[in-house]
C-alpha cells in the first residue's frame, strides 16, 4: 500500500478554514521565514479517510481478536470510557485555567476526578498517597527512583545502587540507571521461580538505595516471601519499589502497601482498562508510604475544608515537575470511570477471572509444550519451546505460526531466564469459547512443529506482509519517506 505522500496531488485540499476576518497584517520579516514550504500532503478528506481506514485494517487489535500478550494485559477497553473522555467539559479544558485567579474553581470537576482517583488507588494498593503525574509505566518507575533518591539525599544516606531481579522488565534497569544509580541483578531461584533470598541477602549492602520487585513476577508466580524481601532491604536502609505492571492478578487479594512496599506504580493501561493506543498514551501513577509523601511531584490536589479541591505547589521537599501539568488527565479519567463502574466486587472478579483463565489455558497446554514452572499460576504463565526446538522450531516460529491460525502471539523471548519463552496472559474478559479456540490453535501449531517444521519457518503467510527484513531496515535506515528513494 502506498505511503500517504505518494497519493498527494498538487493543489488538492482536505479542510476548509474560515476567511480571515481582520485586516492583513504586515508580513513576517523574511529573516524569520522558512525558505521553502513544508512538503505536507495535498489530499481531499476522502483520500485521507480511505488511507487511514485501510491502514487500520492492516492492524490486529483487542477489538479484532484475542491478544494473549504476556505482561501487557490486553483486556477489553469498555466504550463508555471513550464516551466520557470526549465530554467537552473534560476534553476542551485548558491546563493553565487554574493559573487564573480563583482558577481552581473553574476546574472543580477535573480536580474531583484526580482527587478521587488518588484516594481509590490508595485503597486498592494499600498506599498512603498517590501522584497521577507519571505519563507511562516506565515514567512511573523513573519517578519512583527519583523519589527514592530524594528521600535518601534528604536523610543524608550515601546510596549508589539499585538491585533488580533478573526476571524484571527491561524498563526497571533502565529507570534505575537514568535516575543516576548503578544497577545490580539478583538471580531467580530456578526451582521456585521466586527471587533467590540468599543471593539477595548477599547483594544488599549499605550502598543499596532500593530493590525493585515485580509481584507476581514475570513468570506469573506470586512471591510469598515479599515481606522477607522488604525486611532484608529495610535492615540496610534500602527502600523497596514495587512494579505494579502485574497488579491485574491480585486486586482485592493482596495490597503492596500491606507488605511494607515503600514506592510503587500502577499501569492504568493494563489493570484499569485504558486502551493501549498502539503504544500509548498510558499512565503510571506512583504510590508511596507516609515517609515519602513530602517528595511527591507538584502540583498536588488537596481538599479544602469547604469540600472544594485546589492545586497545592507548596511542598519544599518535592522532586518538582515531572510532567507539564497533572499527568495524562484523560487516561486517568478513563481509569476512574472503570473503577467506579466495577466497584470493589467487580475488581475482585477481574483478578479471579484473570487467574482462572490463565490456569485453564496453562493446564490445557502443558502436554504440548514444556512448562518450566508446573504449579498454579497467577494471571499469566510462561511456556518454553524446548520440545519444538528439537525439530529446529523456535519460539518466534511458533508465534508466527499462530498468526496464521488467526491469533495474536504471546510475548516471546521474555522473561530472559526461560529459554525460548512464550508468555501467555489471557486476561479476564475472554470467554471460555475463545480460550478453547486458542488452545486448539496452539496445539495445531505444536503438531505442525513436529510434522512440518519448515512450514513454520516461512510463517506467516496470511498477513499483508510476511517477516520483514530487519537487517536491511537497520542497514538502509529508511526512516522518512523521500520520493527519489524507492
Amino acid at each position, binding site marked *: 500500500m502506498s505511503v500517504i505522500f505518494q497519493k498527494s496531488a498538487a493543489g488538492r485540499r482536505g479542510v476548509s478554514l474560515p476567511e480571515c476576518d481582520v485586516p492583513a497584517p504586515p508580513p513576517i520579516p523574511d529573516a524569520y521565514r522558512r525558505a521553502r514550504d513544508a512538503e505536507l500532503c495535498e489530499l481531499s478528506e476522502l483520500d485521507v479517510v480511505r488511507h487511514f481506514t485501510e491502514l487500520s485494517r492492516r492492524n490486529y487489535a483487542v477489538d479484532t481478536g484475542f491478544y494473549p500478550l504476556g505482561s501487557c494485559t490486553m*483486556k477489553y477497553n469498555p466504550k463508555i470510557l471513550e464516551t466520557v473522555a470526549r465530554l467537552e467539559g473534560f476534553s476542551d479544558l485548558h491546563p493553565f485555567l487554574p493559573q487564573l485567579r480563583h482558577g481552581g474553581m473553574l476546574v472543580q470537576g477535573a480536580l474531583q476526578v484526580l482527587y478521587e482517583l488518588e484516594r481509590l488507588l490508595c485503597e486498592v494498593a494499600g498506599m498512603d498517597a498517590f501522584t497521577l503525574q507519571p505519563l507511562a509505566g516506565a515514567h512511573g518507575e523513573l519517578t519512583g527512583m527519583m523519589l527514592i533518591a530524594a528521600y535518601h539525599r534528604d536523610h543524608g544516606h550515601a546510596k549508589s545502587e539499585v538491585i533488580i531481579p533478573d526476571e524484571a522488565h527491561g524498563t526497571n534497569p533502565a529507570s534505575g540507571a537514568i535516575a543516576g544509580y548503578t544497577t545490580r541483578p539478583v538471580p531467580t531461584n530456578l526451582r521456585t521461580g521466586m527471587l533467590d533470598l540468599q543471593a539477595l541477602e548477599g547483594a544488599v549492602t549499605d550502598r543499596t538505595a532500593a530493590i525493585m520487585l515485580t509481584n507476581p513476577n514475570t513468570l506469573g508466580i506470586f512471591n510469598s516471601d515479599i515481606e522477607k524481601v522488604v525486611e532484608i532491604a529495610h535492615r540496610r536502609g534500602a527502600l523497596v519499589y514495587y512494579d505494579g505492571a502485574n497488579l491485574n492478578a491480585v486486586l482485592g*487479594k*493482596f495490597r503492596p502497601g500491606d507488605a511494607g512496599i515503600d514506592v510503587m506504580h500502577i499501569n492504568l493501561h493494563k489493570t484499569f482498562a485504558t486502551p493501549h493506543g498502539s*503504544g500509548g498514551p498510558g499512565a503510571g501513577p506512583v504510590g508511596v508510604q507516609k515517609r515519602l509523601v513530602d517528595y511527591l511531584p507538584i502540583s498536588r490536589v488537596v481538599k479544602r475544608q469547604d469540600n472544594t479541591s485546589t492545586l497545592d505547589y507548596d511542598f519544599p521537599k518535592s522532586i518538582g515537575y515531572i*510532567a507539564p501539568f497533572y*499527568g495524562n488527565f484523560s487516561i486517568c479519567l478513563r481509569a476512574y470511570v472503570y473503577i467506579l463502574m466495577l466497584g470493589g466486587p467487580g475488581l475482585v472478579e477481574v483478578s479471579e*477471572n484473570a487467574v482462572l483463565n490463565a490456569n485453564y489455558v496453562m493446564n490445557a497446554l502443558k502436554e504440548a509444550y514444556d512448562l518450566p514452572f508446573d504449579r498454579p499460576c497467577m494471571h499469566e504463565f510462561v511456556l518454553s519451546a524446548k520440545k519444538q526446538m528439537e525439530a529446529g522450531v523456535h519460539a518466534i516460529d511458533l508465534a508466527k505460526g499462530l498468526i496464521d491460525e488467526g491469533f495474536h502471539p504471546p510475548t516471546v523471548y521474555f522473561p530472559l531466564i526461560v529459554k525460548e519463552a512464550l508468555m501467555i496472559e489471557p486476561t479476564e474478559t475472554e470467554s471460555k469459547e475463545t480460550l478453547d479456540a486458542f488452545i486448539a490453535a496452539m496445539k495445531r501449531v505444536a503438531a505442525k512443529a513436529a510434522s512440518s517444521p519448515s512450514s513454520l519457518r516461512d510463517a506467516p503467510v496470511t498477513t499483508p506482509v510476511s517477516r520483514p527484513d530487519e537487517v536491511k531496515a537497520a542497514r538502509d*535506515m529508511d526512516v522518512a519517506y523521500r520520493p527519489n528513494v524507492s
Partner: protein
Amino acid sequence: MGYIANTAGQREEMLKACGAASVDELFACIPPALRPKSFQLPRPRSELEAHNFFKEVAGRNYSHLTNFLGGGFYDHFIPAAVDALASRSEFYTAYTPYQPELSQGTLQAIYEYQTGICRLTGMEVANASVYDGGTALYEACQMALHATGRGRIVMDGGLNPVYRKMLYSYTANLCIEFTEIPVTHGQSDRRHVFQALKDNTAAVILQNPNFFGVMDDASDIVKHCHERGILVIQSVYPIALALLKTPGEIGADIATGEGQSLGIPLAFGGPYLGFMATTKELVRKLPGRLVGRTVDRLGREAFVLTLQAREQHIRREKATSNICTNEALCALRAHIYLSLIGKQGLKDVASLCYAKARYAMERFKAIRGVSVMEESPTFNEFVIRLPIDAGDLAGMMVERGLAPGLPLGRFYPGMERCLLVAITEKRTKFEIGTLAEAMEAVLCQ
C-alpha cells in the same frame, strides 16, 4: 457484572479442568497474613449511572470560556475526521507493534508521521514520539550530554518556564550543570548567550517562538556554538513551522516540541505528544521507537521497528532512555491532522493565527493604561502590561466568560501586571473585540 464473559457454569467447568475446587485455591500462594487489611471501594455502577454522573462532573468545569490561554498549549481547531479516524479501535486497542505482520497499519502510520515531522522541522530523522514537549527536551539534553561527553547545558531565557522546571527535576540526582540566560522579553540576548558558552558546554537550548511569542533567527547562535563543538537544541511550535525558519535551516542538531497543537485536545494537560527530530549523525543517540521501511521475505514493502539496540528491552541499563510506552495514538492524531490540513492548510492556519494576533495587539494597545511589549516581532502570542495585577484582571474577565491569557507573576517575579495572550485561528474578530471591550470596561471606569 463488569466485562467478564464466562458464566458461572463455565467457571465451574474450567476450575474442574484445573483440578481446583474453588477460585480461592488458585490464590493459595498468597498467605493469609498478606491478604488485604482493607478493600473499601464503592459499589458498582451501571453504564447509565456512570454516564450521568460524569456528565454532571464534566459540567462543573469551565471549558466554555473563550480561550486566550496559550503558554505552549493552544486551542486550535480539530477537524472532525481526526476524531473519526483516531477512534477506529483497530488503532486504539492495539499494542506496541512488536509483531510487524499484525501491525503494518500502525508501523506505516508511524513511518509517515516521522516523515511529516522531518518535513516540518527540516531535520533528517524523527522518532515515534516521547511523552510531551518537556520530556522531549530532557531527552534531547541527554543526547547532547552523551554525544559531546560534556556536562553543562545553557538554557536561553525565552524557554518555557514549565520545561525549565522539568529539566531541573529530572537531573536533580545527576551531575549536570545548568546555566540560565537572564529573561528578556525580546530575542535571545546574544551577548549573554555567548558569554555563557564554556568548554564543558554540551548544548544550548533555544525556543522559537520563545515563551513570550517572539520570533528569532538563531542561525548566528548556531554557528557560534558549532565552532566550539556545542550542540544546539531548539524547541519549536509546530503550527508556526508552516511559516517560520526551521531548526534544520538554522542548523540546529536536535529539534523538539509539543505536538498538542496538531489535532490533540487540551484535555486538562494530557495526553500530549513530545516530538523529537535530529540529524543522521545523532540517530543512534535518539531515544524511543523508530520505524524503518524495508521488504519482507517475498520482496514486498514492509515496515518494522528498527535500531532497537538503543532501547531498554534490549540494552536494559545501557539504553539511551527508559521509555517504553510512548504517545503512539497522539502521534497518529498529529499525522492525521497534518494529512488533512495539508501543505496549504497549515500555512493558512499559521497565517490566520499571526494576522489575528496582530489585530488583537493593535486593539489592546488602544486601551488606556495597557501597553504591548513589542521590542521584537511576535507570532501568535504576546505580552501585555496592565495597570493592575494580571491575576485580578483575569478574575474579572472570567466573570464575563473569557479566559484572557496567562498571568505571568507566578513564573516571573516582577511581572505581576503582565498577561501572556495567545490567539489561534479559532478566535474571531468579534471575540477579540469582546475581550478588548471587557478590559476597557474594568480598566477605564
